[in-house]
C-alpha cells in the first residue's frame, strides 16, 4: 500500500490548561484510506481528532504546539481560515446529531452556507449525498419530513450525508457507531469502507473488531501518547509494542 500522505502530524502537543492531553504526536494519514484510532478511554483520541478540523478552537483553555499539515499546508498557521478548513475536513459525531429541520435541509445546510443557492443544484447535491451515504432509497419519499423522526442508524447516515454534501476531502468520525444497534452498525461500517474510495477517513473506535474490519491503518494511543502505528493487518497480528498487544487482546483498557 503506497498512498500519498494526506495529513502529516509533527510534534503535536496539546494542553487543557495545565494538563497535557497529547504528547509529541507524530504520524501520517494516507489519502483515500481508513485510519483507525484506538486506545483506552481518556487517552486523547477525540482530542486528537478535533485537532484536525480545529474544533478545539472553541475550548478556551486549550493550547496547541507542533504542526498538522494537510496537503502540505499547516492548518494552525495564521493564514489558514478555520472555516474553509472545516469545509475540507468534515466530521461525524458519536451521537447522531441531525438539526431539528427536514432531512433535505439538513443535507443542504452546508452547501447553502458555502453559497449554493440554486434549487436544482441543491437537489442534485442532496440526492448525491444521500446516495453516497446509502440512505437515499429509505428517505427519498420523505425528504421534507423532520430528520429527528428517523431511526438512530438512519440519523447517523444522514449526518454522514450532511458531512459529504460539502465535498470534503477528509472525514473525521468519532465513535460513529457507539450509539447504534448491531444492524445499523454494520450498515455504517459498510458505508465507511465505501467512502474510503473517495475520501480520507479517520475513525475513532472502541471496538477492536470494527477497527480490524474497516481500517487500512491503525494507530494506538495510550495516555496522550502515540504508541504504535502501522497497517491494520500488522497491528492486529504482530504488534511491536507490548502495550498494544495487551490492549488488543483485552488485557486492559
Amino acid at each position: 500500500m503506497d498512498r500519498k500522505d494526506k495529513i502529516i502530524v509533527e510534534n503535536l502537543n496539546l494542553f487543557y490548561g495545565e494538563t497535557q492531553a497529547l504528547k509529541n504526536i507524530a504520524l501520517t494519514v494516507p489519502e483515500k484510506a481508513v485510519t483507525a484510532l484506538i486506545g483506552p478511554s481518556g487517552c486523547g483520541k477525540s482530542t486528537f481528532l478535533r485537532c484536525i478540523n480545529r474544533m478545539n478552537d472553541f475550548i478556551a483553555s486549550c493550547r496547541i504546539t507542533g504542526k498538522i499539515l494537510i496537503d502540505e499546508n499547516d492548518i494552525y498557521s495564521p493564514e489558514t481560515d478555520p472555516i474553509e478548513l472545516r469545509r475540507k475536513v468534515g466530521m461525524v459525531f458519536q451521537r447522531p446529531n441531525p438539526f431539528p429541520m427536514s432531512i433535505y435541509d439538513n443535507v443542504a445546510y452546508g452547501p447553502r452556507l458555502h453559497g449554493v443557492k440554486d434549487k436544482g443544484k441543491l437537489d442534485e447535491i442532496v440526492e448525491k449525498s444521500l446516495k453516497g451515504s446509502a440512505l437515499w432509497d429509505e428517505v427519498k419519499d420523505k425528504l421534507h419530513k423532520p430528520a429527528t423522526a428517523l431511526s438512530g442508524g438512519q440519523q447517523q447516515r444522514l449526518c454522514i450525508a450532511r458531512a459529504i454534501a460539502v465535498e470534503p476531502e477528509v472525514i473525521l468520525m468519532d465513535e460513529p457507531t457507539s450509539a447504534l444497534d448491531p444492524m445499523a452498525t454494520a450498515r455504517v461500517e459498510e458505508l465507511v469502507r465505501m467512502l474510503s474510495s473517495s475520501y480520507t477517513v479517520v475513525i475513532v473506535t472502541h471496538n477492536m473488531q470494527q477497527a480490524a474490519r474497516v481500517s487500512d491503518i491503525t494507530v494506538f494511543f495510550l495516555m496522550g501518547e502515540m504508541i504504535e502505528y502501522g497497517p491494520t493487518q500488522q497491528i492486529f497480528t504482530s504488534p511491536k509494542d507490548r502495550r498494544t498487544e495487551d490492549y488488543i487482546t483485552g488485557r486492559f483498557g
Partner: protein
Amino acid sequence: MGNTLRGDKAPQRIIQTISIIGVAIMLFILFFLVKESIPILKEVSIFQLLFGMEWYPTYDPPDYGMFPLIVGSLSVTLAASILAVPLSIMLAVFISEICPRKLKELLKPVIEILGFFPSVVLGFIGMVVLAPWMIQHLEAYSGLNLLNAAFLMGIMIIPTVTSLAEDSLASIPKDLRDASYALGATRLETITKVVLPAALPGILQAVLLGVMRAIGETMVVLMAAGGAAIIPLSLTDPVRPLTSTIASEMGETPVGSIHYHALFFAGLLLLLLTLGLNLLAMFIERRARRLRA
C-alpha cells in the same frame, strides 16, 4: 405496617388541604372580579364598555367607554415590546453564545436583579429624568406620554424576556452547534440557522410572558404615561392604560358605585388578557416538550 401507613395519611391530608389555598386564591380572584363586574353590565352594554370612545366616569351623565383605555394598554405594551424584545433576545444570545464564562456568572445575576427594580422607582425616573428630557428634545407637551412609559416598561420586561430566552437557548444541545461548526459555519450562521430556530418555542414563550408582564404593569404607566383617556396618534401623546385607570380612580370612588364596578370590569379584562397569554405560553411549552419527546 398498616399502622405506620395510616399514621402517614394524616400529614398528607393536612398538606393537601393547605395546598388547596393556592387553587382557592386563583378561583376567588376570578370569582370576585366577575362578581364585582356584573353590576356594570346591567347598566351599560358590553359593547358600549369595550368600544365606547368616551371615558368620563365622574361626569353627569357618566360615560364608561373603555376603548381608549384598552388602546392605551395595548399601545404602551406594543411600543415597549418593540423597544425591549429585540434587545432582550440579543442579550440572551450574547449571554448564551458569546459571553466568556466569568462575565456570564456576573451578568446573569445582574439581569435578574434588574427584574426586581420596583416599578414605582422606574416610574419616578420617568417623571424626573425622561419627562424633562422629552420636553426639551422632542418638544413633547408634558413629557409624560406613551413613549416615556414604553421606555420604562421596556426596562421592566428586559429581565423576564432575557432570562427565559436564555434558558431556552442554553437547553439546545452542544452537539448541534458542533455539527454546524464542523460543516464550516461561522458563529453567526450557527446562531441564526441552527440555535435560534431550535430555541424558537422557548423564545416565543419568553416574549409572551414579557408581554403579559407589560400589560399588567401599573406604576410605570400611572406615573409616566400622562393619563389622558384618548386614542394616541403619536408617540408623544399621553395615554391612560387600564391598569393606571384602576389604580388612580379606585381610591376616589365609593364602594359599590357604578364607577367602582366599571373599574372591576377593567380589572377583569386585564385578568383575562394576561391569563390568555399565560395559557398560550403554557400551551407552547407543552407542545414543544411533546415534540422533543
